[in-house]
Protein backbone atom coordinates (compact mmCIF):
# COMPACT_ATOMS: atom_id res chain seq x y z
CA UNK A 1 0.00 0.00 0.00
CA UNK A 2 1.47 3.32 -1.04
CA UNK A 3 -1.27 5.89 -0.85
CA UNK A 4 -0.80 9.61 -0.48
CA UNK A 5 -3.39 11.71 1.26
CA UNK A 6 -3.68 15.49 1.33
CA UNK A 7 -6.02 16.99 3.92
CA UNK A 8 -6.96 20.67 3.54
CA UNK A 9 -3.43 21.49 2.53
CA UNK A 10 -2.54 25.17 2.23
CA UNK A 11 0.62 27.04 1.41
CA UNK A 12 1.52 30.64 2.07
CA UNK A 13 4.52 32.55 0.84
CA UNK A 14 4.51 35.41 3.29
CA UNK A 15 1.06 36.91 3.04
CA UNK A 16 0.31 35.35 -0.34
CA UNK A 17 -1.66 32.14 -0.32
CA UNK A 18 -0.73 30.02 -3.34
CA UNK A 19 -2.42 26.73 -2.37
CA UNK A 20 -5.86 27.34 -0.98
CA UNK A 21 -6.98 24.10 0.60
CA UNK A 22 -6.40 20.91 -1.36
CA UNK A 23 -7.94 17.55 -0.46
CA UNK A 24 -6.88 14.50 -2.39
CA UNK A 25 -6.40 10.81 -1.92
CA UNK A 26 -3.97 9.15 -4.28
CA UNK A 27 -4.55 5.42 -4.21
CA UNK A 28 -1.91 2.72 -4.32
CA UNK A 29 -0.48 2.26 -7.84
CA UNK A 30 -2.51 5.11 -9.18
CA UNK A 31 -1.15 7.54 -11.79
CA UNK A 32 -2.45 10.96 -10.79
CA UNK A 33 -1.72 14.06 -12.86
CA UNK A 34 -1.89 17.62 -11.56
CA UNK A 35 -2.70 19.85 -14.48
CA UNK A 36 -3.30 23.58 -14.73
CA UNK A 37 -1.96 26.72 -16.31
CA UNK A 38 1.51 27.94 -15.45
CA UNK A 39 1.70 29.57 -12.01
CA UNK A 40 -1.37 27.82 -10.59
CA UNK A 41 0.64 26.06 -7.87
CA UNK A 42 1.21 22.57 -9.30
CA UNK A 43 4.90 22.51 -8.51
CA UNK A 44 4.32 23.96 -5.08
CA UNK A 45 1.83 21.21 -4.30
CA UNK A 46 4.20 18.51 -5.55
CA UNK A 47 7.13 20.00 -3.64
CA UNK A 48 5.08 19.98 -0.47
CA UNK A 49 4.48 16.27 -0.94
CA UNK A 50 8.20 15.82 -1.60
CA UNK A 51 9.14 17.73 1.53
CA UNK A 52 11.01 20.45 -0.31
CA UNK A 53 8.45 23.05 0.79
CA UNK A 54 6.85 23.26 4.17
CA UNK A 55 3.11 22.73 4.48
CA UNK A 56 1.64 25.89 6.00
CA UNK A 57 -1.66 24.32 7.07
CA UNK A 58 -3.08 20.82 6.66
CA UNK A 59 -1.79 17.28 6.74
CA UNK A 60 0.13 15.05 4.39
CA UNK A 61 -0.20 11.32 4.92
CA UNK A 62 1.79 8.64 3.16
CA UNK A 63 0.63 5.10 3.86
CA UNK A 64 -1.48 6.54 6.60
CA UNK A 65 1.42 8.13 8.48
CA UNK A 66 1.63 11.90 8.91
CA UNK A 67 4.65 13.16 6.97
CA UNK A 68 4.54 16.95 7.44
CA UNK A 69 7.69 17.01 9.52
CA UNK A 70 9.55 14.07 8.01
CA UNK A 71 12.65 14.91 5.96
CA UNK A 72 12.38 14.48 2.16
CA UNK A 73 14.58 11.39 1.94
CA UNK A 74 12.69 9.60 4.69
CA UNK A 75 9.30 9.87 3.00
CA UNK A 76 10.00 7.03 0.59
CA UNK A 77 9.58 9.24 -2.46
CA UNK A 78 11.69 9.94 -5.50
CA UNK A 79 11.38 13.03 -7.63
CA UNK A 80 12.20 13.77 -11.26
CA UNK A 81 12.79 17.47 -11.81
CA UNK A 82 11.93 19.55 -14.85
CA UNK A 83 15.57 20.52 -15.30
CA UNK A 84 16.57 16.88 -14.57
CA UNK A 85 18.90 18.25 -11.85
CA UNK A 86 21.55 15.61 -12.55
CA UNK A 87 24.82 15.91 -10.67
CA UNK A 88 27.05 17.25 -13.46
CA UNK A 89 30.32 16.10 -11.91
CA UNK A 90 29.27 12.47 -11.49
CA UNK A 91 28.92 9.74 -14.08
CA UNK A 92 25.53 8.31 -15.00
CA UNK A 93 26.23 5.40 -12.66
CA UNK A 94 27.31 7.83 -9.95
CA UNK A 95 24.12 9.82 -10.36
CA UNK A 96 21.94 6.77 -10.17
CA UNK A 97 23.79 5.24 -7.24
CA UNK A 98 24.19 8.42 -5.19
CA UNK A 99 21.24 7.82 -2.87
CA UNK A 100 22.35 4.24 -2.21
CA UNK A 101 25.89 5.42 -1.58
CA UNK A 102 24.64 7.92 1.00
CA UNK A 103 22.51 5.21 2.57
CA UNK A 104 25.63 3.07 3.00
CA UNK A 105 24.62 0.30 0.60
CA UNK A 106 27.71 -1.81 -0.23
CA UNK A 107 29.25 -1.13 -3.62
CA UNK A 108 28.47 -4.50 -5.14
CA UNK A 109 24.80 -4.28 -4.30
CA UNK A 110 24.71 -0.68 -5.48
CA UNK A 111 26.22 -1.58 -8.84
CA UNK A 112 23.72 -4.37 -9.26
CA UNK A 113 20.76 -2.09 -8.64
CA UNK A 114 22.15 0.62 -10.89
CA UNK A 115 22.66 -1.93 -13.63
CA UNK A 116 19.12 -3.27 -13.26
CA UNK A 117 17.64 0.21 -13.56
CA UNK A 118 19.93 1.02 -16.47
CA UNK A 119 18.66 -2.07 -18.22
CA UNK A 120 15.05 -1.03 -17.87
CA UNK A 121 15.87 2.37 -19.35
CA UNK A 122 18.42 1.18 -21.94
CA UNK A 123 21.18 3.21 -20.35
CA UNK A 124 23.71 0.39 -19.97
CA UNK A 125 26.07 1.75 -22.60
CA UNK A 126 26.10 5.20 -21.02
CA UNK A 127 26.90 4.36 -17.41
CA UNK A 128 30.40 5.86 -17.51
CA UNK A 129 29.43 9.11 -19.21
CA UNK A 130 28.90 12.45 -17.55
CA UNK A 131 25.53 14.20 -17.95
CA UNK A 132 27.17 16.85 -20.15
CA UNK A 133 27.88 14.17 -22.75
CA UNK A 134 24.26 13.06 -23.04
CA UNK A 135 21.36 14.20 -25.20
CA UNK A 136 18.24 15.68 -23.62
CA UNK A 137 16.34 12.42 -23.90
CA UNK A 138 19.18 10.45 -22.35
CA UNK A 139 19.45 12.90 -19.44
CA UNK A 140 15.75 12.47 -18.91
CA UNK A 141 16.22 8.71 -18.69
CA UNK A 142 19.05 9.09 -16.20
CA UNK A 143 16.84 11.30 -14.04
CA UNK A 144 14.15 8.62 -14.12
CA UNK A 145 16.77 5.95 -13.49
CA UNK A 146 17.98 7.81 -10.43
CA UNK A 147 14.43 7.65 -9.12
CA UNK A 148 13.93 3.97 -9.96
CA UNK A 149 17.10 2.85 -8.20
CA UNK A 150 15.73 4.05 -4.89
CA UNK A 151 12.66 1.82 -5.22
CA UNK A 152 10.41 4.54 -3.87
CA UNK A 153 6.84 4.08 -2.72
CA UNK A 154 5.77 7.03 -4.82
CA UNK A 155 7.31 8.70 -7.86
CA UNK A 156 6.93 12.44 -8.26
CA UNK A 157 7.41 14.09 -11.64
CA UNK A 158 7.51 17.85 -12.21
CA UNK A 159 6.96 18.57 -15.91
CA UNK A 160 9.59 16.00 -16.85
CA UNK A 161 8.95 16.18 -20.57
CA UNK A 162 8.72 19.91 -21.13
CA UNK A 163 12.37 20.27 -22.15
CA UNK A 164 12.14 17.63 -24.87
CA UNK A 165 11.20 18.17 -28.49
CA UNK A 166 7.73 17.16 -29.63
CA UNK A 167 8.61 13.76 -31.10
CA UNK A 168 10.65 12.70 -28.09
CA UNK A 169 7.91 13.90 -25.80
CA UNK A 170 5.38 11.57 -27.37
CA UNK A 171 7.85 8.68 -27.17
CA UNK A 172 8.68 9.34 -23.51
CA UNK A 173 5.00 9.67 -22.71
CA UNK A 174 4.41 6.14 -23.93
CA UNK A 175 7.49 4.89 -22.08
CA UNK A 176 6.40 6.49 -18.83
CA UNK A 177 2.99 4.90 -19.09
CA UNK A 178 4.68 1.55 -19.68
CA UNK A 179 7.05 2.15 -16.79
CA UNK A 180 4.09 2.83 -14.54
CA UNK A 181 2.65 -0.55 -15.48
CA UNK A 182 5.92 -2.44 -15.19
CA UNK A 183 6.96 -0.97 -11.86
CA UNK A 184 3.49 -1.17 -10.34
CA UNK A 185 4.26 2.12 -8.67
CA UNK A 186 2.22 5.05 -7.44
CA UNK A 187 3.00 8.14 -9.51
CA UNK A 188 2.12 11.80 -9.17
CA UNK A 189 2.85 13.80 -12.26
CA UNK A 190 2.69 17.55 -12.84
CA UNK A 191 2.17 19.12 -16.24
CA UNK A 192 0.58 22.15 -17.86
CA UNK A 193 -0.11 20.09 -20.97
CA UNK A 194 -3.63 18.64 -20.94
CA UNK A 195 -2.70 16.11 -23.64
CA UNK A 196 -0.08 14.59 -21.33
CA UNK A 197 -2.64 14.55 -18.56
CA UNK A 198 -5.34 12.92 -20.69
CA UNK A 199 -3.05 10.27 -22.15
CA UNK A 200 -1.25 9.14 -19.02
CA UNK A 201 -3.49 9.71 -16.03
CA UNK A 202 -5.73 7.34 -14.15
CA UNK A 203 -7.08 10.45 -12.50
CA UNK A 204 -6.52 14.13 -13.17
CA UNK A 205 -6.60 16.97 -10.68
CA UNK A 206 -7.25 20.31 -12.37
CA UNK A 207 -5.78 23.20 -10.44
CA UNK A 208 -6.40 26.89 -10.95
CA UNK A 209 -4.84 29.62 -8.80
CA UNK A 210 -4.33 27.20 -5.91
CA UNK A 211 -7.88 25.84 -5.98
CA UNK A 212 -8.90 22.37 -7.14
CA UNK A 213 -11.43 22.83 -9.95
CA UNK A 214 -12.15 19.15 -10.50
CA UNK A 215 -10.76 15.68 -9.85
CA UNK A 216 -11.69 12.75 -12.03
CA UNK A 217 -10.72 10.29 -14.70
CA UNK A 218 -9.73 11.75 -18.08
CA UNK A 219 -13.07 10.75 -19.59
CA UNK A 220 -14.99 12.15 -16.60
CA UNK A 221 -13.36 15.50 -17.13
CA UNK A 222 -13.97 15.34 -20.85
CA UNK A 223 -17.59 14.25 -20.61
CA UNK A 224 -18.65 16.07 -17.47
CA UNK A 225 -16.54 19.15 -16.89
CA UNK A 226 -17.60 20.70 -13.61
CA UNK A 227 -17.20 24.27 -14.80
CA UNK A 228 -16.21 26.44 -17.76
CA UNK A 229 -12.57 26.45 -16.70
CA UNK A 230 -12.22 22.67 -16.86
CA UNK A 231 -14.37 22.60 -19.99
CA UNK A 232 -12.03 25.00 -21.75
CA UNK A 233 -8.85 23.45 -20.39
CA UNK A 234 -9.45 19.78 -21.16
CA UNK A 235 -9.78 18.71 -24.78
CA UNK A 236 -8.11 19.87 -27.96
CA UNK A 237 -9.17 21.86 -29.89
CA UNK A 238 -10.80 23.72 -27.04
CA UNK A 239 -14.50 23.42 -26.29
CA UNK A 240 -16.59 26.23 -27.79
CA UNK A 241 -18.00 28.34 -24.97
CA UNK A 242 -20.80 30.62 -26.09
CA UNK A 243 -22.47 33.24 -23.93
CA UNK A 244 -26.30 33.23 -23.95
CA UNK A 245 -29.33 34.08 -21.83
CA UNK A 246 -32.29 31.93 -20.80
CA UNK A 247 -35.69 32.62 -22.35
CA UNK A 248 -38.92 30.61 -22.18
CA UNK A 249 -41.70 30.62 -24.75
CA UNK A 250 -44.67 28.26 -25.26
CA UNK A 251 -43.45 26.00 -22.46
CA UNK A 252 -40.07 25.56 -24.14
CA UNK A 253 -36.72 26.83 -22.89
CA UNK A 254 -34.33 28.54 -25.30
CA UNK A 255 -30.88 30.01 -25.12
CA UNK A 256 -30.53 33.36 -26.81
CA UNK A 257 -26.98 33.47 -28.04
CA UNK A 258 -25.09 36.73 -27.68
CA UNK A 259 -24.71 36.60 -31.45
CA UNK A 260 -28.48 36.79 -31.90
CA UNK A 261 -29.48 33.19 -32.70
CA UNK A 262 -31.81 31.04 -30.65
CA UNK A 263 -31.29 27.39 -29.61
CA UNK A 264 -33.71 25.11 -27.79
CA UNK A 265 -32.24 23.69 -24.57
CA UNK A 266 -33.54 21.34 -21.92
CA UNK A 267 -35.24 22.94 -18.95
CA UNK A 268 -32.99 24.67 -16.44
CA UNK A 269 -33.82 25.96 -13.02
CA UNK A 270 -32.89 29.51 -13.87
CA UNK A 271 -34.98 32.64 -14.28
CA UNK A 272 -35.65 34.14 -17.67
CA UNK A 273 -32.81 36.41 -18.71
CA UNK A 274 -30.19 34.63 -16.58
CA UNK A 275 -26.76 34.51 -18.22
CA UNK A 276 -25.57 31.04 -19.10
CA UNK A 277 -22.72 29.55 -21.12
CA UNK A 278 -23.21 26.86 -23.74
CA UNK A 279 -20.37 24.41 -24.17
CA UNK A 280 -19.97 22.47 -27.39
CA UNK A 281 -16.92 20.46 -28.29
CA UNK A 282 -15.65 20.97 -31.86
CA UNK A 283 -16.04 17.24 -32.44
CA UNK A 284 -19.70 17.38 -31.31
CA UNK A 285 -20.64 19.89 -33.99
CA UNK A 286 -21.75 18.89 -37.47
CA UNK A 287 -22.05 20.89 -40.68
CA UNK A 288 -25.39 19.49 -41.68
CA UNK A 289 -28.84 20.71 -42.56
CA UNK A 290 -31.67 20.63 -40.07
CA UNK A 291 -29.39 22.37 -37.66
CA UNK A 292 -30.44 24.81 -35.03
CA UNK A 293 -28.00 27.50 -36.08
CA UNK A 294 -26.11 28.81 -39.06
CA UNK A 295 -23.07 30.92 -39.72
CA UNK A 296 -20.44 32.03 -42.19
CA UNK A 297 -17.24 30.04 -42.67
CA UNK A 298 -14.36 32.37 -41.87
CA UNK A 299 -11.26 30.13 -41.73
CA UNK A 300 -10.51 26.52 -42.66
CA UNK A 301 -7.49 24.64 -41.30
CA UNK A 302 -6.52 21.38 -43.00
CA UNK A 303 -4.69 18.97 -40.73
CA UNK A 304 -4.99 16.07 -43.19
CA UNK A 305 -6.81 13.54 -41.08
CA UNK A 306 -9.16 16.19 -39.82
CA UNK A 307 -10.29 19.64 -40.79
CA UNK A 308 -11.05 22.55 -38.49
CA UNK A 309 -13.74 24.92 -39.69
CA UNK A 310 -14.19 28.26 -37.93
CA UNK A 311 -17.71 29.55 -38.35
CA UNK A 312 -18.85 33.05 -37.45
CA UNK A 313 -22.26 32.81 -35.77
CA UNK A 314 -22.73 36.54 -35.35
CA UNK A 315 -20.94 39.44 -33.68
CA UNK A 316 -17.57 37.85 -34.44
CA UNK A 317 -18.24 34.82 -32.21
CA UNK A 318 -16.34 31.93 -33.83
CA UNK A 319 -17.35 28.29 -33.39
CA UNK A 320 -14.68 25.67 -34.02
CA UNK A 321 -16.01 22.61 -35.81
CA UNK A 322 -13.93 19.49 -36.27
CA UNK A 323 -14.76 17.16 -39.13
CA UNK A 324 -13.16 14.24 -40.91
CA UNK A 325 -14.25 15.62 -44.28
CA UNK A 326 -11.35 17.22 -46.18
CA UNK A 327 -13.50 19.71 -48.13
CA UNK A 328 -16.52 20.38 -45.91
CA UNK A 329 -17.09 23.93 -47.16
CA UNK A 330 -15.43 26.99 -48.61
CA UNK A 331 -14.53 30.22 -46.87
CA UNK A 332 -17.48 32.61 -47.16
CA UNK A 333 -20.13 29.86 -47.36
CA UNK A 334 -23.16 30.14 -45.11
CA UNK A 335 -23.41 26.75 -43.42
CA UNK A 336 -25.98 25.09 -41.16
CA UNK A 337 -24.69 23.77 -37.83
CA UNK A 338 -26.22 20.94 -35.85
CA UNK A 339 -25.32 18.87 -32.81
CA UNK A 340 -26.53 16.04 -30.67
CA UNK A 341 -28.39 17.72 -27.77
CA UNK A 342 -26.95 15.15 -25.36
CA UNK A 343 -23.49 16.61 -26.04
CA UNK A 344 -24.48 20.13 -25.11
CA UNK A 345 -22.95 21.40 -21.85
CA UNK A 346 -24.70 24.13 -19.91
CA UNK A 347 -23.01 26.32 -17.34
CA UNK A 348 -24.78 28.71 -15.00
CA UNK A 349 -23.97 32.36 -14.32
CA UNK A 350 -21.25 31.28 -11.86
CA UNK A 351 -19.58 29.09 -14.50
CA UNK A 352 -20.59 25.83 -12.76
CA UNK A 353 -22.14 23.01 -14.78
CA UNK A 354 -25.94 22.88 -14.72
CA UNK A 355 -26.69 19.35 -15.86
Amino acid at each position, binding site marked *: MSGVELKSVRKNYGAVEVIKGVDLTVRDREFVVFVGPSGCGKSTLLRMIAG*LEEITVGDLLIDGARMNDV*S*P*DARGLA*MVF*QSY*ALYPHMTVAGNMGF*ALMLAGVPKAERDLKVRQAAKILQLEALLDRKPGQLSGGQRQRVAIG*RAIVREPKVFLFDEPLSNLDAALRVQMRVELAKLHRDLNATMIYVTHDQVEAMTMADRILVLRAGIVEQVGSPLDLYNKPANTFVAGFIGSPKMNLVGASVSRRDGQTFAFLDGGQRLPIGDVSLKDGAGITLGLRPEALLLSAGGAARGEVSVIEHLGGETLVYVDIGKGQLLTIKTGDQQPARVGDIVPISFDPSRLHLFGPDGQALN
Partner: protein
Amino acid sequence: MVKNKRALVIRTVLGWLIAFIMAFPVFWMTLAAFKTEMDAYASPPLLVFTPTLENFAEMNQRVDYVRHAWNSVLVALGSTFLGILIAAPAAYVMAFHPTKRTRSIMLWMLSTKFMPAVGVLVPMYLMLVWLDLLDTRTALITITLLSNLPLVVWMLYSYFKEVPAEILEAGRMDGAGPLKQLRYLLVPLATPGISSTALLCIILSWNESFWCINVTAVDSGTLALAIASFSNPEGYFWAKLSAASLASVAPILIFGWVTQRQLVRGLTFGAVK
Protein backbone atom coordinates in the same frame (compact mmCIF):
# COMPACT_ATOMS: atom_id res chain seq x y z
CA MET B 1 38.93 50.30 -41.50
CA VAL B 2 41.57 52.99 -41.14
CA LYS B 3 39.73 54.49 -38.24
CA ASN B 4 39.51 51.12 -36.56
CA LYS B 5 43.19 50.60 -36.97
CA ARG B 6 44.01 53.95 -35.43
CA ALA B 7 41.71 53.21 -32.50
CA LEU B 8 43.51 49.91 -32.05
CA VAL B 9 46.93 51.61 -32.00
CA ILE B 10 45.74 54.20 -29.48
CA ARG B 11 44.23 51.53 -27.29
CA THR B 12 47.37 49.42 -27.40
CA VAL B 13 49.65 52.35 -26.54
CA LEU B 14 47.34 53.43 -23.74
CA GLY B 15 47.20 49.89 -22.39
CA TRP B 16 50.95 49.57 -22.27
CA LEU B 17 51.31 53.01 -20.73
CA ILE B 18 48.97 52.16 -17.88
CA ALA B 19 50.65 48.79 -17.39
CA PHE B 20 54.01 50.55 -17.28
CA ILE B 21 52.84 53.10 -14.71
CA MET B 22 51.44 50.34 -12.54
CA ALA B 23 54.49 48.13 -12.81
CA PHE B 24 57.04 50.92 -12.48
CA PRO B 25 57.36 50.94 -8.67
CA VAL B 26 57.96 47.22 -8.65
CA PHE B 27 60.48 47.56 -11.44
CA TRP B 28 62.26 50.37 -9.62
CA MET B 29 62.26 48.44 -6.37
CA THR B 30 63.75 45.44 -8.13
CA LEU B 31 66.56 47.60 -9.52
CA ALA B 32 67.23 49.28 -6.18
CA ALA B 33 67.46 45.93 -4.44
CA PHE B 34 70.60 45.18 -6.41
CA LYS B 35 72.21 48.63 -6.01
CA THR B 36 74.58 49.78 -3.31
CA GLU B 37 73.08 52.24 -0.84
CA MET B 38 75.10 55.01 -2.62
CA ASP B 39 73.82 54.10 -6.05
CA ALA B 40 70.26 53.94 -4.79
CA TYR B 41 70.44 57.55 -3.67
CA ALA B 42 72.23 58.83 -6.80
CA SER B 43 70.62 61.75 -8.54
CA PRO B 44 69.82 61.58 -11.41
CA PRO B 45 68.78 57.94 -10.80
CA LEU B 46 71.03 55.30 -12.26
CA LEU B 47 69.74 52.85 -14.78
CA VAL B 48 73.14 51.30 -15.40
CA PHE B 49 75.10 50.16 -12.36
CA THR B 50 77.13 47.27 -11.03
CA PRO B 51 74.66 44.86 -9.42
CA THR B 52 75.37 43.56 -5.96
CA LEU B 53 73.85 41.03 -3.58
CA GLU B 54 75.18 42.70 -0.45
CA ASN B 55 71.73 44.07 0.47
CA PHE B 56 70.35 40.59 0.71
CA ALA B 57 73.24 39.40 2.77
CA GLU B 58 72.86 42.30 5.15
CA MET B 59 69.11 41.87 5.34
CA ASN B 60 69.60 38.27 6.33
CA GLN B 61 71.94 39.34 9.08
CA ARG B 62 69.52 41.80 10.49
CA VAL B 63 66.31 39.80 10.28
CA ASP B 64 65.62 36.11 10.27
CA TYR B 65 64.18 35.83 6.75
CA VAL B 66 63.36 32.15 6.95
CA ARG B 67 61.50 32.56 10.22
CA HIS B 68 59.40 35.45 8.94
CA ALA B 69 58.75 33.69 5.64
CA TRP B 70 57.58 30.60 7.55
CA ASN B 71 55.26 32.79 9.63
CA SER B 72 53.91 34.34 6.44
CA VAL B 73 53.21 30.92 4.98
CA LEU B 74 51.50 29.70 8.15
CA VAL B 75 49.40 32.82 8.54
CA ALA B 76 48.37 32.90 4.88
CA LEU B 77 47.50 29.22 4.62
CA GLY B 78 46.04 28.96 8.10
CA SER B 79 43.75 31.96 7.84
CA THR B 80 42.67 30.98 4.34
CA PHE B 81 41.90 27.38 5.23
CA LEU B 82 40.00 28.25 8.39
CA GLY B 83 38.27 31.15 6.65
CA ILE B 84 36.89 28.91 3.93
CA LEU B 85 35.94 26.27 6.46
CA ILE B 86 33.83 28.84 8.29
CA ALA B 87 32.57 30.75 5.26
CA ALA B 88 31.40 27.77 3.19
CA PRO B 89 28.52 26.72 5.46
CA ALA B 90 27.55 30.36 5.94
CA ALA B 91 27.51 31.00 2.19
CA TYR B 92 25.58 27.76 1.64
CA VAL B 93 22.80 28.80 3.99
CA MET B 94 22.67 32.31 2.59
CA ALA B 95 22.56 31.11 -1.00
CA PHE B 96 20.06 28.27 -0.62
CA HIS B 97 18.05 28.92 2.53
CA PRO B 98 17.81 32.69 2.71
CA THR B 99 15.53 34.40 5.22
CA LYS B 100 14.14 37.91 5.31
CA ARG B 101 17.29 39.10 7.01
CA THR B 102 19.91 37.43 4.83
CA ARG B 103 20.50 40.50 2.70
CA SER B 104 20.95 42.79 5.66
CA ILE B 105 23.34 40.36 7.30
CA MET B 106 25.44 40.27 4.16
CA LEU B 107 25.51 44.06 4.00
CA TRP B 108 26.38 44.24 7.66
CA MET B 109 29.30 41.87 7.11
CA LEU B 110 30.56 44.03 4.31
CA SER B 111 30.09 47.16 6.39
CA THR B 112 32.68 45.89 8.87
CA LYS B 113 35.17 46.61 6.13
CA PHE B 114 34.12 50.25 5.97
CA MET B 115 35.80 51.06 9.25
CA PRO B 116 39.56 51.65 9.15
CA ALA B 117 41.39 48.96 11.08
CA VAL B 118 43.16 51.54 13.20
CA GLY B 119 39.79 52.40 14.72
CA VAL B 120 39.77 49.14 16.67
CA LEU B 121 43.48 48.90 17.28
CA VAL B 122 43.36 49.80 20.96
CA PRO B 123 40.52 47.44 21.98
CA MET B 124 42.03 44.65 19.93
CA TYR B 125 45.42 45.25 21.46
CA LEU B 126 44.00 45.20 24.98
CA MET B 127 42.09 42.02 24.25
CA LEU B 128 45.24 40.36 23.04
CA VAL B 129 47.04 41.48 26.18
CA TRP B 130 44.33 39.99 28.39
CA LEU B 131 44.30 36.79 26.42
CA ASP B 132 48.08 36.72 26.53
CA LEU B 133 48.18 36.35 22.76
CA LEU B 134 50.43 39.25 21.79
CA ASP B 135 53.05 38.27 19.25
CA THR B 136 51.54 34.86 18.56
CA ARG B 137 50.65 33.30 15.24
CA THR B 138 47.30 32.29 16.73
CA ALA B 139 46.42 35.95 17.17
CA LEU B 140 47.60 36.96 13.72
CA ILE B 141 45.85 34.05 12.01
CA THR B 142 42.62 34.82 13.87
CA ILE B 143 42.71 38.50 13.05
CA THR B 144 43.60 37.98 9.39
CA LEU B 145 40.94 35.32 9.11
CA LEU B 146 38.29 37.57 10.59
CA SER B 147 39.20 40.56 8.49
CA ASN B 148 39.06 38.49 5.29
CA LEU B 149 35.91 36.63 6.28
CA PRO B 150 33.33 39.06 4.85
CA LEU B 151 35.03 38.97 1.47
CA VAL B 152 35.32 35.17 1.55
CA VAL B 153 31.65 34.73 2.44
CA TRP B 154 30.60 37.15 -0.30
CA MET B 155 32.71 35.43 -2.92
CA LEU B 156 31.63 31.92 -1.97
CA TYR B 157 28.03 33.12 -1.84
CA SER B 158 28.18 34.36 -5.42
CA TYR B 159 29.85 31.17 -6.63
CA PHE B 160 27.35 28.97 -4.79
CA LYS B 161 24.51 30.97 -6.31
CA GLU B 162 25.67 29.71 -9.70
CA VAL B 163 24.81 26.13 -8.74
CA PRO B 164 21.16 25.40 -9.60
CA ALA B 165 19.09 24.94 -6.45
CA GLU B 166 17.36 21.90 -7.99
CA ILE B 167 20.64 19.97 -7.92
CA LEU B 168 20.83 20.40 -4.17
CA GLU B 169 17.16 19.57 -3.87
CA ALA B 170 17.77 16.37 -5.79
CA GLY B 171 20.52 15.73 -3.26
CA ARG B 172 18.08 16.31 -0.43
CA MET B 173 15.67 13.81 -1.93
CA ASP B 174 18.57 11.37 -2.23
CA GLY B 175 19.29 11.73 1.46
CA ALA B 176 22.03 14.35 1.61
CA GLY B 177 21.77 16.71 4.58
CA PRO B 178 23.45 20.12 4.50
CA LEU B 179 26.96 18.82 5.20
CA LYS B 180 26.72 16.08 2.59
CA GLN B 181 25.28 18.53 0.07
CA LEU B 182 28.32 20.70 0.70
CA ARG B 183 30.78 17.86 0.51
CA TYR B 184 29.41 15.87 -2.41
CA LEU B 185 27.67 18.52 -4.48
CA LEU B 186 28.45 22.13 -3.74
CA VAL B 187 32.18 21.96 -3.15
CA PRO B 188 32.91 19.83 -6.24
CA LEU B 189 30.67 22.01 -8.39
CA ALA B 190 32.08 25.30 -7.14
CA THR B 191 35.72 24.20 -7.08
CA PRO B 192 36.93 26.86 -9.55
CA GLY B 193 35.26 29.56 -7.48
CA ILE B 194 36.51 28.16 -4.19
CA SER B 195 40.07 27.96 -5.47
CA SER B 196 40.11 31.50 -6.71
CA THR B 197 38.65 32.67 -3.42
CA ALA B 198 41.42 30.77 -1.64
CA LEU B 199 44.10 32.23 -3.90
CA LEU B 200 42.88 35.76 -3.38
CA CYS B 201 42.66 35.14 0.34
CA ILE B 202 46.23 33.82 0.45
CA ILE B 203 47.48 36.90 -1.40
CA LEU B 204 45.59 39.29 0.88
CA SER B 205 46.83 37.50 4.01
CA TRP B 206 50.39 37.46 2.76
CA ASN B 207 50.35 41.20 2.18
CA GLU B 208 48.49 42.09 5.37
CA SER B 209 50.77 44.47 7.26
CA PHE B 210 48.74 46.64 9.61
CA TRP B 211 47.92 44.03 12.24
CA CYS B 212 51.17 42.23 11.76
CA ILE B 213 53.18 45.35 12.51
CA ASN B 214 51.02 46.28 15.47
CA VAL B 215 50.48 43.01 17.31
CA THR B 216 53.50 40.87 16.46
CA ALA B 217 57.23 41.08 16.95
CA VAL B 218 60.15 38.77 16.31
CA ASP B 219 58.36 35.55 17.27
CA SER B 220 55.36 35.57 14.99
CA GLY B 221 55.96 38.49 12.66
CA THR B 222 55.50 37.86 8.96
CA LEU B 223 57.60 39.23 6.13
CA ALA B 224 55.60 42.46 6.28
CA LEU B 225 57.15 43.08 9.69
CA ALA B 226 60.58 42.31 8.31
CA ILE B 227 60.19 44.96 5.63
CA ALA B 228 58.90 47.51 8.08
CA SER B 229 61.97 47.12 10.25
CA PHE B 230 64.04 48.62 7.46
CA SER B 231 62.28 51.95 7.55
CA ASN B 232 62.88 53.03 11.12
CA PRO B 233 63.97 56.06 13.09
CA GLU B 234 67.67 55.39 12.39
CA GLY B 235 66.97 56.52 8.84
CA TYR B 236 65.86 55.05 5.55
CA PHE B 237 67.91 52.43 3.87
CA TRP B 238 66.66 52.52 0.31
CA ALA B 239 68.52 49.60 -1.12
CA LYS B 240 68.06 47.32 1.88
CA LEU B 241 64.39 48.20 2.13
CA SER B 242 64.03 47.31 -1.53
CA ALA B 243 65.90 44.07 -1.08
CA ALA B 244 63.70 43.11 1.86
CA SER B 245 60.56 44.06 -0.03
CA LEU B 246 61.62 42.09 -3.06
CA ALA B 247 62.38 39.06 -0.93
CA SER B 248 58.94 39.37 0.65
CA VAL B 249 56.83 39.85 -2.41
CA ALA B 250 58.77 37.47 -4.65
CA PRO B 251 57.13 34.29 -3.29
CA ILE B 252 53.61 35.67 -3.62
CA LEU B 253 54.38 37.15 -7.06
CA ILE B 254 55.58 33.79 -8.27
CA PHE B 255 52.58 32.14 -6.63
CA GLY B 256 50.23 34.58 -8.36
CA TRP B 257 51.98 34.06 -11.67
CA VAL B 258 51.72 30.28 -11.44
CA THR B 259 48.07 30.33 -10.42
CA GLN B 260 46.86 33.19 -12.58
CA ARG B 261 44.98 30.95 -14.98
CA GLN B 262 43.07 29.39 -12.12
CA LEU B 263 42.48 32.82 -10.63
CA VAL B 264 41.08 34.28 -13.83
CA ARG B 265 39.03 31.17 -14.54
CA GLY B 266 37.45 31.37 -11.11
CA LEU B 267 36.79 35.08 -11.22
CA THR B 268 35.03 34.80 -14.57
CA PHE B 269 33.42 31.46 -13.68
CA GLY B 270 29.85 32.66 -13.93
CA ALA B 271 30.33 34.82 -16.98
CA VAL B 272 31.69 32.17 -19.29
CA LYS B 273 29.86 29.10 -18.05
